[in-house]
């Protein structure tokens, strides 16, 4: 049976402890944290340590910033890498598994004007490889994993498919860098999401779930049994972390996810 997690902002409650109460009652196995910039996540350490002491399960963290390690601007790239390294250290201190980031988000799309990014593909590849190597080595030292998340073509122009992420990871050559897959993006980008999971099985480290319309699993039209069946097939032992918007009554929507995923073969 695959384990489920909900991102913290989806859960009602004023503290992680309250959110955990709700999450457990809804059938989740964990909470996925979110990490803002300016070392905000590091500054939450007292709160996070207390939550850990109170039994809250927090295996993963997902970056919540507006610039990333693939930014066009060199200073923003540098900051993004430092933030991620700090986030990896924090999740390591909490005994977690790793941190997830895309190459970029909302910066450029080859599907929207002006269509051609301001730098060439060779330069972009170099930037991605050096960023992944630096963060991956830091993750290795900390004993955790960096999850690279392919986004759909409208949100990122560099890493859209599992094949692209796997190729970069192979080149970097670190076990501490894996793919963080996302059902929503895969639905847009992969010819066959289930087959892609099988093909890139050795590179998959984390999984986020939302439906075809970015709402909670069950609110759209993804073929969940096939997708989840493929994860079972490769022996995936990580979490299915709900990163989604909610439609309908928010608490009811969040509560519906673990049961829906179970019924769909999780």
């Amino acid at each position, binding site marked *: 049976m695959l384990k489920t997690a909900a991102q913290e902002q989806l859960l009602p409650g004023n503290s992680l402890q309250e959110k955990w109460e709700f999450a457990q009652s809804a059938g989740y196995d964990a909470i996925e944290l979110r990490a803002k910039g300016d070392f905000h996540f590091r500054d939450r350490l007292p709160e996070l340590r207390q939550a850990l002491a109170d039994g809250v399960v927090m295996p993963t963290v997902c970056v919540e910033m507006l610039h990333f390690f693939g930014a066009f601007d060199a200073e923003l790239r540098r900051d993004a890498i430092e933030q991620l390294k700090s986030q990896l250290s924090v999740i390591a201190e909490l005994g977690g598994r790793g941190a997830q980031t895309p190459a970029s988000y909302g910066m450029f799309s080859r599907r929207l004007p002006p269509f051609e990014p301001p730098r060439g593909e060779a330069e972009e590849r170099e930037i991605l490889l050096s960023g992944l190597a630096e963060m991956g080595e830091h993750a290795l030292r900390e004993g955790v994993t960096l999850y690279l998340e392919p986004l759909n073509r409208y949100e990122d122009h560099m890493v859209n498919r599992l094949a692209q992420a796997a190729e970069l990871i192979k080149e970097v050559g670190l076990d501490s860098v894996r793919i963080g897959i996302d059902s929503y993006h895969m639905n847009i980008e992969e*010819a*066959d999401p*289930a*087959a892609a999971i*099988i*093909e890139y*099985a050795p590179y998959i480290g984390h999984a986020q779930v939302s439906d075809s319309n970015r709402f909670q699993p069950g609110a759209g039209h993804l*073929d969940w*049994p*096939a997708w989840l*069946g*493929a994860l*079972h*097939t*490769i*022996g995936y032992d990580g979490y299915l972390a709900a990163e989604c918007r909610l439609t309908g009554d928010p608490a009811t929507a969040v509560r519906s996810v673990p049961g829906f995923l179970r019924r769909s*073969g999780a």
Partner: protein
Amino acid sequence: MTELLQAPATTRDGAWRGAAEVLIGNWTGTSTVPSRSLYPHQWSWDSAFLAIGWRHLSPRRAQRELESLLGAQWGDGRVPHIVFNPSVPLGAYFPSPDFWRSSAAGAGRGAPATVETSGIVQPPVHALAALLVHEADPEISRRRGFLTRLYPRLARWHDYLARRRDLGRGGLAAVVHPWEPGMDNSPCWDGPLARIEPAEPGTFRRADLDHGAATDRPTDLDYGRYVRLAAEYRDAGYDDAAAPHGFAVEDPNFNALFIASEYALAEIAAEVGAAPAGHLARAERLTRALLDRLWDAEAGVFRCRDLHAGGDGLIPETSVAGLVPLIVPGLPGPVVDALLRTLTGPHFALGDRTGLAPSYDLRGHAFDPSRYWRGPAWFNINWLIERGLRLQGVPERADALRSAFLRSAAGSGYAEYVDPLTGEPRGARRFGWTAALTLDLLGSVSPTFAGPRRLARHLAARPHRPSTSSTRAIRAHADAPSPKLSAPLEQGGTPSTPRPDPQRSERHPLAAGEEPR
């Protein structure tokens, strides 16, 4: 992903993962290829068995599998045995679309104009598969209108078989090419095929030998005859009334599946608000005809009937096709008992010398443990026998067969078929229905077969008739009321003595040179 297949296949998880990986790997987007190397298109009865496996992994893909096959149905109702993938090169499989020329040659029979198919058929497992797929997730099935859309197509398919293929006028569907019963080179066809002049070897090129060992495949001489028969059918516009049908055989496997599917169609009809009665009546008529025309009480097995031969036409070969009627509900007790004796006796030695039933008599003159349907054990047939054993109330034998199936399927790398004595894998590996039916046996220890419980619900609504020994097998399921079949089946006894049939002509229509209907 060889690591996955090498994962401990002997465990339940290992077998599940290996089988799921094969299915996902063979999926093309709308259907599943039986094998990436040997069979790169969509095959009719493969699709049905594949859907039965897919329902455990993705009910939606299971539905798509059947929808895409039925989407290539001909106007006359036939479901073609191959639907060609236009992106696969012509040379990858023979006979290719340019041999069958369905859209042109079959236009008069309503062949699709935009999809190329073969012109022959395979056993009708589809309604049975559709029902099992529906039952796996009725909610998504109803939301997608799966059965509502499929029911009329399935009904027309069965009508085609009943109206256009009753060449012997005895109430059974006949096959007109050795590929139609699905057991392509069974020794049962040797006699009927011997009459066929083979096509010249230089006039066609086999593609199957590019990917398969010649010793595991049919011979060149057989292939020449297959080509001749198919070309003659094509040149007659695939018109069953006009084609010479140099080969015309009634096969117990084909007709047993027809019966099981007709019962399933009755359930489907009820689900979509249509009338089940006609389907139930046809299933019962077919069952009587099967017993009348193909049962050999002395041998304890159903035989194939050669419609061109003299005498009773029963072909003196013992094939596993003759045991598949175990899946037919309501067989007379003595018939079931005899079938079980044959299955476990020296000819098939199930549970003794073999773990899986061989495709042909171990003692037969033509037995070959390696060559396709002349001896090897096949997984779809053994799945049917496993279901049949449960239906007939012998669950301990079914359990043993299930275990042997799972061991052999996973251990052989999901082989197309295996040597029945040694278990050595033969034919293609990573074969679709072997993987699919592995998932089914892993997913349902208790039978969900269109067997007694649901069937009985429909039958119970019919006028009550006293139960007799004929329903022994059904009664063995203590939780299900006995289905009531109408006379003469219900009168029990072994129907080895042919009963007069007012519908049947004294002179055999084909032997007498008359045109079939």
